[in-house]
């Protein structure tokens, strides 16, 4: 056997879900001591491939080789035993367990019980400077620390190959930098690392090799020295405009004023804490921050979905707080919810039905208590064309559409009536690049029509691209509101709760 063989080799992996070919004869080699980036769009098949590698899915064709030997994984237990560790995109941690219990789970005998697991956590924690208390409960830890627990879990099994599946999605820029340092340290210790991502910046910063996949197929290898534009066009398959084109804002008199807004959750925590800001017509205010710092609750409060909200939300002089969702919608608020499948659409309904979902009262769609199908279908047909919704027809079930087309249906509905305010929460999450471009252009068009626009996003690139001003949220409060040209470092610090950065930037602005 060749001593130069790869630590991990995938040969011709093919995985189908029904008619969909998620992975089509994918080959991949990863050597010890290298970081191999797997770059691809959402839905390109990266996660499927890794789930095959990890034994969660069974591939229809192909082989997995470790150190040159063919492996047969019946389940994740086998993969782990063979030396494959995985840091999952959605952490595989049990929230009510402690750190040590999570590390112990599944390896009770090998680790020598809870005491052994605690010892192991301390050892690994010390090696990487993690400062993790083995007795801390997972649900009490910030996401960045939870991710380190995932890494400890993998390392406690002496993983030779470590897979990071979209690990930076939930991190602040600073946490991302720290994670990259950890990955480099692991590489230098001889671990083979597979790094799955769609973020070009990170790939270029850290990759030793890059494999690009698109629509389930390997497109080719790219050099780590490639420019972002080159990588993006390789990933998407055509030249891509990475920046959002927009003119300077033309402010109008419309405005949303939020004053002293506080939202309590069920147990009395201030999930939104005394938030005050103003959005003028014709500008985009982006709300940046790490997921779970009150952004969701803030947008829901504007729409009237949060029962325990105090303060004031005034749209063109009319108070919205305390009104029913119906009244808020009727006063011209368009809302793109964070999770389109759960809150934005009814999957079992057709496109035309979803497009009139919030207009079941009166003209033009309802007369004398019955739906005017003619009006409904005419509206749907028009929107299908205007929003470039790729579907067989207006009767197609929304649940069968791709994420991008689903989001277009939501946008078509929310932008399809006269608006006084537009709120979009994570409007491009999980979308392909083409759809992202479309959504961005619609948001900018809405802004240019003189409507105040609020966009909540955890993706810093999107925030910087869309915003005229950026408000950063941290633990329910707004740390600061800065101009769109604020530095990435400053935004990152603000996302971690530092206010000095905000004031410094504010003073500079």
């Amino acid at each position, binding site marked *: 056997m060749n001593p130069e063989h790869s630590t991990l080799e995938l040969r011709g992996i093919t995985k189908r*879900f029904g008619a969909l070919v998620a992975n089509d004869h994918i080959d991949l080699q990863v050597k010890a001591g290298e970081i191999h980036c797997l770059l691809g769009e959402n839905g390109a098949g990266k996660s499927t491939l890794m*789930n095959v590698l*990890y034994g*969660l*899915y069974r591939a229809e064709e192909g082989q997995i080789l470790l150190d040159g030997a063919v492996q047969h994984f019946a389940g*994740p*237990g086998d993969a*782990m035993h063979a030396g494959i560790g*995985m840091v*999952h995109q959605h*952490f*595989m*941690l*049990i*929230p*009510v*367990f402690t750190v040590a219990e*999570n590390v*112990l*789970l*599944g*390896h*009770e*005998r090998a680790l020598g019980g809870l005491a052994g697991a605690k010892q192991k956590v301390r050892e690994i924690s010390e090696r990487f400077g*993690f*400062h*993790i*208390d083995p007795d*801390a409960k997972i649900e009490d*830890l*910030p996401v*960045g*620390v939870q991710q*380190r627990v995932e890494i400890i879990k993998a390392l406690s099994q002496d993983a030779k190959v470590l897979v990071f599946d979209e690990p930076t999605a939930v991190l602040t820029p*600073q946490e991302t930098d720290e994670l990259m340092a950890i990955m480099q340290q692991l590489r230098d210790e001889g671990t083979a690392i597979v790094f799955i991502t769609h973020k070009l910046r990170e790939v270029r910063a850290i990759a030793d090799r890059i494999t690009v996949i698109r629509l389930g197929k390997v497109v080719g290898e790219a050099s780590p020295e490639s420019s972002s534009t080159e990588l993006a066009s390789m990933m998407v398959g055509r030249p891509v405009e990475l920046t959002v084109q927009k003119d300077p804002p033309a402010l109008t008199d419309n405005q949303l004023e939020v004053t*002293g807004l506080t939202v*309590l959750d*069920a*147990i*009395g*925590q*201030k*999930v939104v*804490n*005394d*938030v*005050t800001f103003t959005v003028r017509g014709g500008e985009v205010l982006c709300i940046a921050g790490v997921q779970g710092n009150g952004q969701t609750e803030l947008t829901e409060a504007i729409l009237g979905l949060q029962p325990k909200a105090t303060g004031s939300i005034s749209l063109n002089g009319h108070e919205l707080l305390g009104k029913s969702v119906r009244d808020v919608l009727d006063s011209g608020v368009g809302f793109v919810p964070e999770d389109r499948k759960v809150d934005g659409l009814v999957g079992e309904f057709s496109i035309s039905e979803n497009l009139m979902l919030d207009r079941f009262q009166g003209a033009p769609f309802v007369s004398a208590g019955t739906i005017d199908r003619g009006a409904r279908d005419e509206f749907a047909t028009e929107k299908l064309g205007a929003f470039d919704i790729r579907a067989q027809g207006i009767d197609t079930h929304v649940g069968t559409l791709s994420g991008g087309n689903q989001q277009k249906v939501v946008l078509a509905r929310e932008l399809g009536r006269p608006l006084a305010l537009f709120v979009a929460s994570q409007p491009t999450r999980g979308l392909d690049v083409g759809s992202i471009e479309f959504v961005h252009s619609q948001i900018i068009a809405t802004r240019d029509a003189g409507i105040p626009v609020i966009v909540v996003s955890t993706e810093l690139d999107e925030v910087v691209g869309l915003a005229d001003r950026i408000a950063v949220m*941290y*633990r*329910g*409060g*707004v*740390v*600061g509101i800065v101009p769109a040209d604020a530095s990435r470092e400053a935004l990152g*610090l603000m996302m*971690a*709760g*530092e*206010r*000095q950065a905000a004031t410094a930037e504010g003073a500079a602005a």
Partner: protein
Amino acid sequence: MTTQQPVDAQAPTPVETIELERAVVKHWKAPISYAVLTLVALILMVVLGRDGDATLRLASRGDLFALPDAVLPARPTGIVVVILLAALTALSFWAAATVRRLGIWLPIVFGLLFVIGFLSWSGAGAMIPIAGLLFATVGLSVPLIFGAMGGVISERAGVVNIAIEAQLLGGAFTGAVVASTTGSTIVGVLAAMVAAALVSMVLAVFAIRYFVEQVIVGVVLNVLITGLTNFLYSSVLTDNPALNSPERLPKLPIPILEGIPLLGPALFRQSIIVYAMYIIVPLIAWGLFKTTWGLRLRAIGEHPLAADTVGIKVTRLRFWNVTLAGAVAGLGGAYFTLDSNGAFTREMTAGLGYIALAAVIFGQWHPIKAMAAALLFGFASALQQTLGAIGSPVPSEFMLMLPYIITILAVAGFIGQSRAPAASGKPYIKQ
């Protein structure tokens, strides 16, 4: 631009936990519940107060030493109790207003006072055997406790166990028939466990293998086993009494311990099945929180995918633990026919399986707490029986409601939000 967050000069260290600022939330549920109960006590014990003395007999035969009878004059006792209850209620309101936490002692003391007042009121002019009341409490709680243990194990593993009723009933029937035919009560007990485990397996197969809605399967099983045992009872057992006359498990008094006044007879003059319960409940509690079995069991009930990614066979583990849950509940079934009753009768579990399920939730999916909840219910039932026997002033229909009212009050008024295992009721579907 506004925030009231305290801001550190340095970036937060990763070890700190997420602490959001909290608004002051005042919880009025408990004080209001106390106030309502105090009002009830006021109406019963003072406004509708009765004259005469209630004699609480604390001693029973065989005690190491005899406690004297407690003689409570009904009306004065009622007045004192109501004053004390009002004081406790006021304390509770004060604690709620100033956002203070009072210990678990408050509901316990409140409950004891209420019970003493209620006993003296309803037993005015009569004698209430307290030792007998406690004995009945344990007796009525045993099937509930076993049922609740079955519920705890199953739900901790992620399968909602509405079918406790069916497991109890199936166990009771099989225990009676097998013990009668073999002539061995121990074989009867084992058969009851096997029968209940089989019922549980049906639930497990449909819930785990075929992803059928677990509540539906459970309810269907309850109806099925009720119908099946009714049919077999009327078509087979009534014509062949020999099949339904098992020997009963002998009472095995434990020397010395049985002589403890009040508690001795209730706890230590019982059959082997009750003694088994004393071991099984702590064993389950220890197992759940201290062993590999428990760690894995809780993991598959909280986050089965996470358990799967560390190589735990979720489906298999769920299946066998749901089966085990059935076997434990089967002991409760055996208790009906082989200990308390001595023969099978139609629908003899009378909905106790559902109460056991309530005890699971009331007990926050913890074996010891669930046992306490089951004992509370058992006490309410025993109280109803005892007061019925001495001729209570309350109509017997109302007395029959007592255990359920207490359960509802306890769950709604005094227990905070309890959190179920996160994946309980959700099938684990692999690609």
